[in-house]
């Protein structure tokens, strides 16, 4: 499956290899650091709620959930690939085509709606688009054996190009009953998209975290050789992960059409934030591995951060900087923690 080359990660920082240090108060410190990310989350919520009174209102929380729906769905898709591909981002699992996938699926949905097709057809077309992109990734990675980073990079270019061909780089407006429903408010006057995100997360979490197939994904990602020796269909599982991620891209495409009342260009901008969110997700899990719920938490973390900044009138310019600092802080904490455990 993997290539002849072993572009090794900088292994000397990895757990098993690093020089063992005597872990004195190991467990306590480990627990503290593990809880640290959650504590940071709560602390940020507290600071914002004390400084911006509207922050902790049901309406605002609903808004954040709704605004996080698209990136949440994408990040969960990427999480599935991260689980099946292993944690090394260069040689392991990554899907760079997700954001472009969302753009093309959105364009397909909007075009279908404009051509007068009903919601069912348009939704099917968008999901099929996502599915096909995922299948191409799966064939490239599992069939041809291209490293995921390169394979999905090439697919990203193709998909982004196809989106431009389809839309001619213009906005395609769309309005269908489904879109109206998605952009309306549900119970408690919380945006419908918020409920969509929660239901989607629950379903994804149920599949990934609580079914045999999900458990096997972890086995394939963390110990591919052991998984193969145990007789798991490694290639099929990895292919399945890419296809699932493609489907998530298609689904996010539909959500993005409802959010923007049409398909717009520039979906590629979402790529790196989504990668960050998915990678950040693993610090919200107990064993520091990618999980669906962890990714939801990290999506909301970023969402609340952006929202709090807006409420406090802090320049949005700082958002990406704070996101960057967060990755570095969280990851240094994780790295130091792992070194201590080793």
């Amino acid at each position, binding site marked *: 499956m*993997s*290539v*002849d*080359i*072993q*572009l*090794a*990660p*900088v*292994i*000397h*920082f990895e757990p098993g*290899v690093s020089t063992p240090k005597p872990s004195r108060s190991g467990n306590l410190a480990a627990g503290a650091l593990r809880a640290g990310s959650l504590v940071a989350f709560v602390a940020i919520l507290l600071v914002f709620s004390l400084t911006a009174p509207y922050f902790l209102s049901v309406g605002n929380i609903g808004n954040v959930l709704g605004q996080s729906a698209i990136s949440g769905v994408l990040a969960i898709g990427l999480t599935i690939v991260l689980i099946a591909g292993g944690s090394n*981002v*260069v040689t392991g699992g990554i899907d*760079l085509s997700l954001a472009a996938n969302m753009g093309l699926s959105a364009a397909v949905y909007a075009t279908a709606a404009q051509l007068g097709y009903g919601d069912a057809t348009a939704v099917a077309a968008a999901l099929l688009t996502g599915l096909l992109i995922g299948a191409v990734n799966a064939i*490239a990675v599992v069939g*041809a*054996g*291209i*490293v995921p*980073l*390169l*394979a999905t*990079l*090439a*697919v*990203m*270019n*193709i*998909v*982004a*190009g*196809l989106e*431009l*061909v389809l839309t*001619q*780089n213009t906005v395609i407006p769309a309005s269908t009953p489904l879109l109206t429903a998605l952009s309306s408010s549900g119970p408690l006057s919380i945006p419908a998209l918020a409920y969509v995100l929660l239901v989607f997360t629950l379903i994804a979490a149920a599949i990934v975290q609580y079914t045999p197939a999900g458990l096997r994904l972890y086995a394939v990602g963390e110990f591919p050789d052991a998984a193969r020796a145990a007789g798991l269909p490694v290639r099929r599982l990895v292919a399945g992960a890419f296809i699932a991620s493609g489907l998530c891209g298609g689904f996010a495409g539909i959500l993005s059409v409802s959010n923007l009342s049409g398909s717009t260009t520039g979906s590629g901008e979402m790529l*790196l934030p989504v*990668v*960050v969110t998915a*990678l950040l997700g693993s610090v919200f899990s107990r064993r520091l591995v990618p999980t669906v719920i962890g990714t939801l938490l990290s999506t909301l973390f970023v969402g609340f951060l952006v929202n709090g900044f807006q409420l406090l009138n802090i*320049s949005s*310019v*700082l*958002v*990406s*900087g*704070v*996101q*960057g*600092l967060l*990755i*570095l802080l969280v*990851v*240094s904490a994780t*790295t*130091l923690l792992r*070194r201590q455990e080793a």
Partner: protein
Amino acid sequence: MTLQTSAIEPSVPRAIIGVVVDNALVLALVTVFAIFSFATPTFLTIANLQSILVNNFTLLAIAAIAMTFAVSVGGIDLSVGTAIDFASFAFVSLVLAGQPVVVAALAGLGAGAAVGAFNAVLISGIGISPFLATLGTLFIGRSIQQLLTNGGNPVYLPPSGVPEAFRFLGRGAIGGIPVPLIIAAIIIVAATVILTRARFGRVALAIGIQPSVVRYSGIAARAHVAVAFILAGLIAAVAGLILSATVTVYIPSSGSAFLLNAIGATFIGTTLSRLGRPNIPGTVLGVLLLGIVANGLLLTGLNFYWQQVGTGLLIFAVLALSFITRRKA
């Protein structure tokens, strides 16, 4: 899984596959070159070939060489664009402030090296994986640039205020050869020497292949990783200087345009080389491949949007073919 391609018994069909695998990138390049030479009347003209080198090759080659240094120690540098931008910002701002071009250029190189040094601290000092560390740098760099430019306004040099040396760097020529191309050539040669002939290069590649062996040999692996990332920032800064000298403007976050292509070229060069290791000639050929495809598709007169699809498809085909033949070998 292992490096076994070179140890194959010389049976005939295998030998042929071996030759194809060993020279996959050159063959791909020749094929693409031949296709465009036949498909378009203007591709195989001296003017066009020169235009490929100036417009499609120079900047990406420098950025990709920066990337190659990061990849050679087993890492990746997602912040090459950040180093390009910081160098460009320092360079343009100081020239605008009336500083001598040499001072401004040195400051630009310093700014790029500073980005590399920041990465080095994160990676070698704290031990964060290069992907995440440089991703963090990319995000922080984006914010800093927007803060420096009041939310992302370009910094223009007024046409009257462009010093001659500044213009020369971007648009000058020595003996008919454009200055940016000469600089790129110097960097290519220097990087090749560093990576293949110098002790540093051998250690760097060894870290990329088997870091534990390097450490158990008593070599300061972390220091070498740090130097590789600082070098990456410094080299990317050169691209930033040339970029801003060519367009006489600094546009925030414009350097990130090079990121994905630099990754593509470097990894194409790495995976399609005989030993599957990062190497400068491979990276340069990868950049040439991307450049020729972009230029050739432009000349076919294909719809602009289809060109992007075409580029993606061609690269995808090259990758798929070479990975499949490699596996057969």
